[in-house]
């Protein structure tokens, strides 16, 4: 896709080993199982498949699923950047503890998260009662789905950005400053391009995880057909009727949509990374950002 600077590739060892292992593992654990599922839908005729994929409730569920996932990933992208920045750069009491908390949404079973969030955001809940004064309903509306997804995907952006921000060397900023850049210019022109690939990665991960999420959402969504039904719920619904083919058909549709969206985001990311490294030919900022002595960048 991108012409390779072949002479540099030659120097480093381990390409075949790395790629070979990656492809083998990927094939065994992901491609064969997913392929099996796609093969299974082959038992359906095309018109049956199309009928299932474009049924009114299915279409509505795609809108809910992908819309809520996008919203949640966007919220997490914005706040995740701020959180990661604050956690790496600013000292404040209890920082280590807060830092450790960030991973919790993963450790907590999603069902517990869903039940707890629904209780918090219900009209008599700790948060819901205050929102109710403004006429805002969260639990059992599509907004509730977004809230659950924000919780479940919260660690991604923070955790992908943290190591990259930690690696930024002080000299980069100092140099920018000595050349007369304001702080905001340094941030948007020097720092942001450097962390952009990681940022986009975090967003992508949050977004894709949100698409598949089921356990937490069903407790807070309300699950009303056409309004707050997510696609994974429809899949379960089909399984409940022992319609395994129908369930796999929907799963394949989701898989294809996700695949295309992720591919676009990843292409965008490589394009951004390439543009970024070309924009300052010679000594790329990638090198400037490389960690020398590791401990220093950390406060």
């Amino acid at each position, binding site marked *: 896709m991108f012409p390779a600077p072949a002479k540099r590739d030659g120097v480093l060892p381990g390409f075949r080993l790395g790629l070979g292992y990656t492809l083998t593992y990927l094939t065994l654990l992901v491609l064969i199982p997913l392929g099996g599922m796609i093969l299974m839908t082959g038992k359906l005729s095309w018109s049956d498949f199309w009928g299932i994929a474009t049924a009114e409730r299915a279409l509505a569920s795609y809108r809910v699923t992908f819309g809520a996932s996008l919203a949640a990933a966007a919220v997490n992208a914005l706040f995740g950047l701020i959180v990661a920045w604050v956690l790496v750069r600013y000292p404040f009491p209890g920082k280590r503890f807060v830092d450790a908390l960030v991973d919790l949404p993963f450790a907590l079973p999603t069902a517990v*998260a869903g039940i707890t969030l629904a209780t918090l955001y219900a009209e008599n809940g700790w948060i819901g009662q205050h929102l109710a004064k403004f006429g805002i309903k969260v639990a059992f509306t599509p907004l509730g789905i977004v809230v659950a997804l924000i919780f479940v995907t919260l660690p991604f952006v923070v955790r992908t950005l943290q190591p990259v921000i930690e690696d930024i060397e002080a000299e980069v900023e100092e140099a920018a400053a000595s050349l007369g850049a304001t702080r905001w210019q340094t941030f948007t022109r020097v720092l942001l391009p450097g962390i952009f690939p990681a940022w986009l990665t975090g967003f992508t991960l949050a977004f894709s995880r949100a698409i598949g999420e089921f356990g937490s959402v069903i407790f807070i969504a309300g699950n009303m057909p056409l309004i707050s039904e997510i696609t994974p719920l429809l899949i379960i619904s089909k399984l409940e009727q022992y319609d395994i083919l129908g369930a796999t058909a929907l799963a394949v549709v989701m898989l294809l949509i996700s695949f295309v969206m992720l591919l676009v985001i990843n292409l965008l*990311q490589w394009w951004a990374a390439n543009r970024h490294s070309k*924009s300052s030919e010679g000594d790329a900022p990638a090198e400037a950002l490389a960690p020398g002595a590791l401990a220093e960048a950390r406060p």
Partner: protein
Amino acid sequence: MNTRRATAEPRWVRLLLTGVALGFLFLFLVLPLIAVFWEAFAHGAQAYWEALQDGEAHSAMLLTLTIAAVVLPFNIAFGVAAAWAIAKFEFRGKSLLTTLIDLPFAVSPVVAGLIFIILFGAQGFFGQWLVANDIKIIFALPGMVLATLFVTFPFVARELIPLMQAQGRDEEEAAVSLGASGWQMFFRVTLPNIKWGLMYGLILANARAMGEFGAVSVVSGHIRGETNTLPLHVEILYNEYNQIGAFAAATVLALLGLVTLVVKTIVEWRMRKETEMLTADLPPEKTELPPSVATERP
């Protein structure tokens, strides 16, 4: 003066950002967590403690830890290998490969379980053969490990790729040109450089491995005391109107997640000591010219 202005944000910006960050975390993270503990202790510490003394809860914890321990090395090996190939080399189809690595996240956990049923279930592609040879994959430990591997698939790789990309190839190339072997280069140069990213990736993968419900639920069989993981146990207790038991078990998972704190502190401490010792031996830090801001764009 200028330097000061541009290497650190003004005080009010710092305070504002810290406030926003903490406010966000409080609302979306701390408050739900408090609520979980609130439920778990609704009938007092005694009831909480008793709820955790259940033999089924213990076996569930053990199973959860077992699965996490089995999954961990696989995740390290795959993550590092994939990130190495993708971040350090240019080849065709790289975006496609990255997308395929991301894909398991977008697959609903239920479907992630289902695909292994389709393969290994009694009516599945390999079902007949497995039954004939009396090999159990699903509704037993191997199936649950597979499902967990699937849902934690991208973590380490995706954490490392942007980091390794940002770091570039120069240090490794220098090491190789100075005569280091592949593995020497890896352990002396690459690994120290990526350790934080690797650790974050592992912590995330580990948390997810312990907390995973949907996919494991499909392949577990829910046999009490045998194939129930802690998250599955939580669900069953909740469905049986044992709210205290369910939330108490959930707090255990949350506390296991907090192990992060300990691990990270220890690693940080040891690394600092190591770098202190290393910097004594190493040549002075490279002083390369930073990219000029002024020339980038007016």
